[in-house]
């Protein structure tokens, strides 16, 4: 499997670290429903059979976080973009 890093070009998957599904930002720990939100944030995954939006870190390359759309059935990569344009 190769991931087309928007900065480095296509690179072997061994250069990357996966964080898993690209869920939303970390919940606010001070919110009244923090326990519920953190349960969902930490444990609940949609685990689709098909395109899945994921965070990957290009550890052995440009050290950028990427948002990658990967088909979980075929490992086909639909797209890969910097998770936050211009951020490391």
């Amino acid at each position, binding site marked *: 499997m190769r991931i087309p890093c928007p*900065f*480095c*070009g296509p*690179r*072997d998957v*061994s*250069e990357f670290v996966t964080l898993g599904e690209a869920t939303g930002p970390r919940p606010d720990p001070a919110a009244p429903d923090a326990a519920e939100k953190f349960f969902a944030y930490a444990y609940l995954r949609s685990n689709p059979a098909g395109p899945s939006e994921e965070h990957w870190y290009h550890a*052995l*390359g*440009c*050290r*950028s976080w990427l948002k990658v759309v990967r088909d979980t059935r075929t490992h086909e990569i639909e797209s890969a973009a*910097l998770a936050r344009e*211009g951020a*490391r």
Partner: protein
Amino acid sequence: MSEVLTFRSPCAGALKDIGVAATPGVSVRERSPQIATVIARGAIADFAARLKASFGVQWVEGSKVSSGGGLVLVATGPRAWLALRDAGSENLATSLGEGLGETAAVIEQSSGYAVLRIAGEKARATFEKGLGIDLHPRAFAPGDAASTSCAHLNVVIWQVDGAPTYDVAVPRSFAAAFCHWLMESVAEFGLKVL
């Protein structure tokens, strides 16, 4: 008790000539440039403008080398560079800090890397044994740079000319392991240590 620290090459004793051929396939020379890490702050256009105004260097976007007047900036990330300049009277990190001002953070790295210049008609074939990137001239040409791994060692590599000549920066403590990989991989082609 005070102790005087003397510079010692991170590749000391690790590189030796291989073969007796008059024209070895590969040559290697350890460079000793001043090195600094440069990270852009704020708008990249402001950084590029200061780089041009202070050093006459035209910034090239992407995983590329930007150079001019002896200063070389090798892109290592969307907003990060390894800057190199041959040792002179002026400290590189200091002059970059002054020249780039608020547009970048600059960190002295001169003792952090071993930098090797590896050239010759078999230089590409040698690197193909350790790198996972495509080095074919249509994919990687003079001015192109890559941060990647070579035989599981972090490296920053950029192509200097079509000989081909490559410069490779290896974190200092991994230099001996990189030289070991190089000696094994280059053996069939012959090596001249310059």
